[in-house]
């Protein structure tokens, strides 16, 4: 498998089929780990950094859980390929623009990914579509068990898994759920939900994590406390309590829109379709903003021009790196907007 093979599919997390997938786009769990015998990356020398990279990649290469996996040395990957991995949620933006020996290993179905030398030596993630927290915890826990047979992780009886930043210490777990909340946004209740989440010590961010805006009504909710609760406790708070509640609010807001603002809602959905069908130059932000009401329309049964699969395809392949990858060469500014509009019209006229 190569990085180019990735480009031809939309990845498991974007299937749009898991439980509660009308609202929950994807679920992700990440575990931060560091090799006990090496310094953290902020003080590691370039030699030590390279040794860490080699130690982890060698462990992965002989690990049954990662057979057939794709390992990418990010120092060798060009800018478009690195951006492609960000768009597929396989690496963080920080990892894409980082420096020095670093890489990522991705399982063939993209449900597992292992970032090497991001902020910590290892960050293993499991990612699936819809609300599937128990499944992805199982995935990532098994991967972590297997790796710990080969690598000694920095661990302390009191503080648990030791991480470069003490905000991640303990379990080193980061649970993130990506939600599509167009109705709460339209009814202006979104900030209430965000505030309630923050009161519960949860972080609310845009689609690509820290420092990103909520484009396309996509919000990512994640835990910030990693010490003093077991992984299962943190997961189950999300899966059985926090997320179902937000899903319920979004459903109520959608029902209210249908009941009280049906014409405006339908108008918004179908106008968005009209724009996508006819635009001659369009940004990725505008594309995501237009796909948002359509996605809601599909799930409410108010939109019939195309289904979830086409929506997923448009969602991913209109993003800058995917678009350029498909195009076969880098595109600048307006060119990119024109190519994107052409691509969308091509898909929609099929």
């Amino acid at each position, binding site marked *: 498998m190569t990085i180019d093979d990735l480009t031809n599919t939309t990845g498991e997390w974007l299937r749009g089929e898991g439980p509660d997938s009308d609202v929950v786009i994807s679920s992700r769990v990440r575990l931060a780990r560091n090799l006990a015998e090496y*310094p953290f990356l902020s003080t590691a020398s370039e030699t030590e950094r390279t040794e860490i990279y080699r130690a982890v990649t060698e462990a992965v290469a002989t690990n049954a859980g990662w057979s057939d996996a794709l390992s990418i040395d990010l120092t060798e990957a060009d800018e478009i390929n690195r951006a492609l991995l960000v768009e597929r949620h396989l690496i963080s933006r920080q990892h894409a623009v980082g420096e020095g020996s670093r890489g990522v290993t991705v399982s063939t179905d993209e449900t597992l990914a292992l970032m090497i030398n991001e902020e910590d030596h290892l960050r293993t993630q499991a990612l699936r579509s819809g609300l599937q927290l128990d499944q992805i915890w199982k995935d990532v826990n098994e991967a972590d068990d297997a790796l710990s047979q080969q690598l*000694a992780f920095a661990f302390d009886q009191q503080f648990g898994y030791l991480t470069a930043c003490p905000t991640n210490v303990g379990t080193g777990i980061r649970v993130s759920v990506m939600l599509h909340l167009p109705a*709460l946004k339209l009814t202006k209740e979104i900030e209430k939900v965000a505030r309630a989440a923050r009161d519960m010590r949860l972080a609310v961010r845009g689609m690509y994590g820290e420092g990103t805006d909520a484009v396309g009504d996509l919000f990512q909710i994640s835990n910030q*406390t990693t010490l003093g*609760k077991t992984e299962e406790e943190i997961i189950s708070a999300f899966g059985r309590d926090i997320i179902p509640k937000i899903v319920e609010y979004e459903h109520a807001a959608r029902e209210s829109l249908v009941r009280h603002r049906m014409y405006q809602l339908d108008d918004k959905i179908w106008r968005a379709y009209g724009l996508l069908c006819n635009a001659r130059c369009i940004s990725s932000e505008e594309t995501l903003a237009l796909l948002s009401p359509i996605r809601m329309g599909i799930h409410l049964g108010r939109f019939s021009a195309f289904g979830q699969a086409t929506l997923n395809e448009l969602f991913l392949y209109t993003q800058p790196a995917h678009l350029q990858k498909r195009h076969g060469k880098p595109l600048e500014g307006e060119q990119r907007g024109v190519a994107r509009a052409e691509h969308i019209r091509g898909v929609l006229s099929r």
Partner: protein
Amino acid sequence: MHYVCQNCNQARATVHITETMPEKHERHLCDECAEKEGVIVKQHHPTNTILQEFIKHKTGLGGADEKACPDCGLTFREFQQSGQFGCPNDYEVFRSLLEPLIERAHENATHHVGKVPHTADESLKRQSGLTRLRRALQEAIEDENYELAARVRDEIRAMQSADAPES
């Protein structure tokens, strides 16, 4: 060109959006109004707020923050500036200074519960030895003291084989 927020007509607009409904037009909002409308999600960086906590409480350490980790050389003051530790041993070296800060950052939690790696006991030994030895080796090589380098290398090997996790 500066815009005034179109919502409150008071604050300076910092968020500029192109809306497409009902027709294409631009809107200019201040941070606060944009957040209220859900146009932006204010960044509440967990790391930064917790970092501020760390920095806030650094007074009154009476020079304790000048103590350096013997493995990586990091001082507690340097940690407070960057928010990043230098090596796993820092948690041991700065334990007492760190405890109250960790407690604040993690909703009063003081101890890890949950998963434990099966190499837990061994990793404690490894982490406060190998980094130091490896750096000593590097220095010895740079000083062209090959006799010392050979000795240190043997020590590293002995330590690695003593507690390598069984495969």
